[in-house]
């Protein structure tokens, strides 16, 4: 058992990171309405692009399954929502607490460690993201966009996407000097949002660009979710999952070390 835990450090959560989750629940209790925005955004996209644009586009072929455009785009929106949700908490909100309110200086004077802080914030981002993803999946179910029983794995898939981006987001934020640097986050997110085979199939790109897109992070999540929801399963999905897991693990590791360097010099 101990050996397993050593090999899989992401499972070794411990109890201390949960204290930070409790802290965030307390903080959000007073501004619960901010919490609601996470439900609305992907839903608006689904209504506008899925239904509005979908009427103009017609059906698409996904691995031999002919599906309406809405069904094609919805899992992409799910992946985007999972990415956005976890980046909000691990970049902007994390930076604010680290640099401006010095919340973590107080936290680290208690028994918590930099790794607990990193794990706690990622856990919080995942919990929040899971609630949004679950709500969005229910919407997809109501629209009839869940075409396969494999869809039950779409929620863990969304959590995995969230984990990957949360880890990378947290690690990147430890290198930021001021809020101006958040323009880089936007500069990275917008092309990912638009070009990760989210709104049109990968086949629309020429061969060279296809290779580039295949290597980008959000693409992994989009393919994973779309395949699960439509029921187009194959072994390469494990590679996409491994990519996201690696992002999260490396991000968590880098973030823990950097938080220690910055706050415990």
């Amino acid at each position, binding site marked *: 058992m101990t050996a397993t835990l050593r090999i899989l450090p992401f499972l070794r959560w411990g109890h201390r990171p949960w*204290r930070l989750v*409790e802290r965030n629940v307390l*903080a959000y209790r007073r501004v619960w309405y901010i919490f609601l925005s996470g439900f609305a955004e992907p839903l608006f996209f689904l209504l506008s692009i899925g239904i509005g644009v979908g009427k103009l586009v017609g059906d698409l072929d996904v691995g031999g399954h002919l599906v309406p455009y809405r069904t094609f785009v919805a899992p992409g929106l799910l992946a985007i929502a999972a990415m956005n949700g976890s980046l909000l908490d691990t970049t902007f909100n994390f930076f604010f607490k680290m640099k401006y309110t010095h919340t973590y*200086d107080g936290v680290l*004077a*208690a*028994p918590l460690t930099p790794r607990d802080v990193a794990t706690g914030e990622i856990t919080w981002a995942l919990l929040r993201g899971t609630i949004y993803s679950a709500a969005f999946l229910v919407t997809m179910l109501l629209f009839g966009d869940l075409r396969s029983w494999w869809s039950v794995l779409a929620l863990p898939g969304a959590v995995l996407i969230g984990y990957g981006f949360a880890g990378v987001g947290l690690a990147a934020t430890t290198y930021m000097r001021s809020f101006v640097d958040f323009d880089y986050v936007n500069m990275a997110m917008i092309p990912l949002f638009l070009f990760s085979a989210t709104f049109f199939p990968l086949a629309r790109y020429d061969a060279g660009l296809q290779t580039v897109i295949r290597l980008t992070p959000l693409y992994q999540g989009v393919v994973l979710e779309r395949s699960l929801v439509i029921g187009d399963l194959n072994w390469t999905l494990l590679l996409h999952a491994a990519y996201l897991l690696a992002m999260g693990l490396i991000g968590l590791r880098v973030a823990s070390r950097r938080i220690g360097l910055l706050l*415990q010099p």
Partner: protein
Amino acid sequence: MAGPMIEAHALTKRFGSFVAVDGIDFAIEPGEAFGFLGPNGAGKTSTMRMIGCVSPRSGGELSVLGLDPAHDGPQIRARLGVVPQEDNLDTELTVWDNLMIYGRYFDLPRREIRERAAELLEFVQLSDRRDSRVDPLSGGMKRRLTIARSLINRPEVLLLDEPTTGLDPQARHLLWDRLYQLKRSGVTLVLTTHYMDEAEQLCDRLVIMDNARIVAEGSPRQLIADNVTREVVEVRLGIDADTAAEVAALKQYGDRIEALADRVLVYTDDGDATAGAVTSDGIGAVSVLVRRASLEDVFLILTGRSLED
């Protein structure tokens, strides 16, 4: 526990090539109030952060509660209370929630935290502000809340880094009073300050730090007795006095003199006699004042500089 609560040997802290703490030795006994006195930049805060296990030491040895901060940080911090130089209260939470969540960081059960939080708010006189947010509190209130927060885990050692800097006299006295009560209840206090009156009021024993080193150690009274004469005559010279000549002339009156920008200090065991002699000498003194020697004088004599510089 037998032996000192905190013990350091050749303790060193470097930031790159800058040496913040240069091989200091000290031992802090259970139940005592121990002070680090020195000007800004002397290495006090770096020392405190190493004791608080939030800054790894660069060299030497350090033991806190018999444990090694390099390995047992969380276990040590579980038994410490920390009042940092700058308040880092959780500004997104209320006064009450600040105490609740801090207790949770120490894994205390909620029911117990509620009891302690109510007691502590009473202790620091903030019970009527329990539902207030942190931002609108005054500086003194924030400090008191920080102290209440640091006590939520019933610490054996309380670390206070410049606890009263920036507070008005009334707020300081309230704080000192609370620290006395804690000391009486058996908590070991470790504090840094650059106010010598604070050090004299609160500390059983202290070290004077300057330029990353400890330059003297002892009780306030003993430090004064060992390094300074009993009394000091402060001679204030006129603006157009020939300072160099006057200082030379004053040398004969004291065991030792220190020339400051606006006055000359003459160290002597009989202040009144010296003051009389200086006055009748015809030196161009605007005023002559006799006072007891203080830690400020100790610092001046040991380092050649004034604490407030």
